[in-house]
């Protein structure tokens, strides 16, 4: 379609467009202007000198990181006549499926609204505002009556779209009958070469019996250097072999290019002010979710207050709307009272366009282990969401999307554990029924925290959620013996109920590199 040259200049133009007017842009300009006072800058070689200065002072690296971020996150440029929906999601039937799912959720939200007589949004009276400000750090102590609010559930549906696709010769035993491209083990062995058996890993080679000089000490030394250099791309590459506990917070922030400048803190405080002024219906959903999931979790109950501080602000952050340019979903709209259908009176609801569903808080909870400053925690979470987590609850053709993950999981199982798959199918225990909930949450709340963080290291390192599907399959492989003995869905669930003792890296490594093909 487009030649390489055009594509490149389009990409460059797109990135320039996005970075123009950002804080980074104005900071760099300011730095460049100020450096003119320095003696080493001469008029004859002005351009080079300024460039040199920016490099030495670390600003070039910051720009590099910002560009890298855009390259990773933005979809590739396409033909100028392409409508935006096609950019978000090229496959028509996927768009349809996503749209109809969105409609269902919005309908459920609206009906809850009418039934309970609760407005979608209302301004808080002054007394309430003051109270909330005082209680900001301990919102967990609130016990609002949430019994009438129903959590939004994500459940598995069988989107059996055959439409215009020809019936394939192979038969698939799973629930997902969609012809998406997913990678098989030989392809993944190449893609995930850093995880191979001969390469050191955190999560395997840092355990008690392995002497640290074999891998761990050197890896930590390199990690410290990477943090020093402040290079996003290097941090991402590094993370593939796992991040040392002490360096993980810095490394993840670097990979996500998540800063904590005064502007970021101000932005967060503005969101906080928004929470104080207005009460949204989705706030109740957030409270309910936190109380039902994170507060009952052995590891995360401690962080209850942080979760409110992050999620309530998140709902009001319109900057999140940006990600809808590459998310197959569309933010739900609501109308000012009495003006339904009139576009001028349409507002996105909630302001960030994301309706929180049951279990949503589990995306935030593990991060509380790493960051305790609310604005920093918030910034990292938001970036994680707009890069990865949104794909877990929207229907798309992306390789990191939940559809592909489900399909990949089923394919891996069928190819490499056919006996198990067949058996489970026969007893009415489709594997995806169990694995789905793990994958939607990227295993948060199912694995022990340190294992979960090791898994998320790799999600960041490979910039993809694919590893989640691989882990799901490898868990089945690991417990295959017990699963072959079960005779019902309930007993299969029981065998797979407790994942807290699993060590993820050995499982993944064995599945990818030691499975006979």
């Amino acid at each position, binding site marked *: 379609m487009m030649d390489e040259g055009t594509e490149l200049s389009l990409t460059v133009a797109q990135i320039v467009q996005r970075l123009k007017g950002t804080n980074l842009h104005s900071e760099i300009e300011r730095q460049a202007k100020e450096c003119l006072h320095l003696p080493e800058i001469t008029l004859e070689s002005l351009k080079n000198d300024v460039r040199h200065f920016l490099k030495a002072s670390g600003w070039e690296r910051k720009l590099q990181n910002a560009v890298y971020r855009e390259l990773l996150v933005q979809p590739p440029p396409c033909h100028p006549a392409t409508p935006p929906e096609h950019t978000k999601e090229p496959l028509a039937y996927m768009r349809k499926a996503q749209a109809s799912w969105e409609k269902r959720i919005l309908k459920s939200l609206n009906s809850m609204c009418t039934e309970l007589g609760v407005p979608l949004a209302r301004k808080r009276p002054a007394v309430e505002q003051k109270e909330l400000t005082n209680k900001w*750090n*301990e919102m*967990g*102590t609130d*016990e609002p009556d949430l019994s009438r609010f129903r959590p939004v559930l994500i459940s598995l549906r069988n989107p059996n779209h055959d439409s215009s696709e020809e019936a394939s010769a192979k038969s698939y035993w799973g629930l997902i009958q969609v012809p998406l491209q997913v990678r098989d083990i030989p392809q993944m062995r190449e893609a995930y070469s850093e995880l191979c058996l001969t390469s050191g890993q955190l999560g395997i080679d840092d*355990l*008690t019996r392995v002497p640290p000089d074999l891998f761990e000490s050197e890896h930590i030394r390199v990690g410290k250097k990477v943090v020093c250099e402040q290079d996003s791309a290097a941090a991402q590459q590094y993370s593939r072999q796992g991040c*040392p*506990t*002490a360096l*993980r*917070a810095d490394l993840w922030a670097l990979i996500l290019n998540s800063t904590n400048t005064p502007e970021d803190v101000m932005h967060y405080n503005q969101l906080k002010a928004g929470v104080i002024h207005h009460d949204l219906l989705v706030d109740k959903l957030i409270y309910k979710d936190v109380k039902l999931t994170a*507060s*009952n979790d*052995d*590891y995360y*109950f*401690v*962080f*209850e*207050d*942080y979760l409110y501080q992050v999620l309530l602000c998140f709902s009001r952050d319109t900057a999140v709307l940006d990600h809808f340019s590459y998310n197959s979903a569309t933010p739900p709209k609501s109308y000012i009272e009495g003006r339904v259908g009139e576009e001028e009176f349409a507002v996105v609801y909630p302001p960030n366009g994301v309706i929180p569903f049951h279990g949503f808080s589990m995306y935030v909870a593990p991060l*509380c*282990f*790493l960051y*305790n400053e609310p604005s920093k925690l918030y910034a990292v979470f938001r970036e994680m969401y707009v890069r990865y987590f949104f794909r877990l609850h929207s229907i798309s053709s992306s390789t990191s999307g939940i559809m592909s993950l489900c399909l990949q999981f089923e394919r891996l199982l069928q190819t490499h554990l056919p006996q198990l798959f067949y058996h489970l199918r026969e007893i009415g225990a489709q594997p995806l029924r169990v694995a789905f909930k793990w994958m939607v949450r990227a295993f948060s709340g199912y694995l022990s*925290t*340190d294992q979960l963080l090791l898994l998320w290291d790799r999600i960041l390192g490979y910039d993809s959620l694919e590893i989640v599907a691989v882990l799901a399959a490898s868990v089945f492989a690991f417990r295959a013996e017990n699963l072959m003995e079960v005779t019902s869905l309930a007993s299969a669930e029981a065998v797979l109920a407790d994942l807290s003792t699993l060590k993820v890296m050995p499982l993944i490594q064995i599945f990818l590199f030691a499975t006979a093909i």
Partner: protein
Amino acid sequence: MAKNKTAAGYKGPSGDQKRRDGEGRSCVRFRCGLTNTIQDVLRQRPGWVEVKDGGEWDFNWCDVGWLRENFDHSYMEEHVRISHFRNHYELTRKNLMVKNLKRYRKTLEREADRIEAAKCDFFPRTFELPSEYHLFVEEFKRIPGSTWIMKPVARSQGKGIFLFRKLKDIIDWKKDGIRSDEQRDETQVESYVAQRYIENPYLISGRKFDLRVYVLVTSYIPLKAWLYRDGFARFSSTRFSLTSIDDHYVHLTNVAVQKTAPDYDPEKGCKWQVQQLRSYLTARHGRETVEALFKDIDNIFVRSLQSVQKVIINDKHCFELYGYDILLDQDLKPWLIEVNASPSLTASSQEDYEMKCHLLEDTLHIVDMEGRLTGKEKRVGGYDLMWNDGPVYTEDVNLETTGSCCFTANTHLGCVNNRKKQLRQLLKPIPGQKRI
């Protein structure tokens, strides 16, 4: 008690390994005074048989009450073991512990130097009341606005404890005799300690917590102590604030007190495993800081035991499993709150039950009625030998290595506890035991 008898058919470990008592036992008669986890563990141990009251026993897991009444009248044969030291209260009663620590500190100052003595500064300023009342008032007035905590010396589970800031509060208390209804006997004046309250505890997400750690002592002279790798951090169920010092639930982290708090949810559980805490702290503060912290915690165990070494009646029949309560402050300095001779063995959850079972099984492995150990082990299950008449290092120290600088302490609190594997390699199974 029955004389030493080797039951027929017992095969001990082979050849060159020397056993301690000369003979291991294949049938152990035990008495158990408690009806919780320890009873299950004892009953499930192969070859161990419970004897009823009055019967002769080889092993006794008793409560301190029984000890007080019976110890002095019991004759124990050489092989017999009992789960307390006669005068453990020198370490575990708050006033006596403080007294012993203060005295030990003075000794160090005299015999070594101030730096050495400063290593004992891990307990807050404490005064016994009523005997040290005047000293206490002097200190109290020296630091205006400070908060103090009043604790009865002999009670547990958070009973009778309260905080105060004004002398008036305790003067009133003394006058009213706010002894609770538990006080039966007027003739027995209850002793209290007044201790400086740690106002800047390390908080996680606004919540205060303390650490429960397990230390097993099998001998005081020479001092031999083991540290268990597992333990837990107990969280207060509400946020910490100095404004409401009447709120027991905020300040006291004992599970027993938390259980009665209005928003206590038994399903929730307010504990973290110490491994969890260690990871969390490492992620926040970095490896070196956390390693230094855990080294300071080791120091608390060793020094506190050394302070009572000469006072405790060292009876070779005795061993004791202590529950240490440690509090961290915001500078990551650990403080000793108290030592329990009878740490709770009741389980608050399935996970807790398993942890306590493992703890007790490994305790019994070390007591080694079966005679399977050589005595040279540095690790048994989840226990690491922390002190053996001197510091214990993970590296094997011999004539060649002395002189080289880096020795790491043999303690792994909060580290991975792969006890099953270790036990499999270490011990031959007891006859009749399933493979571990």
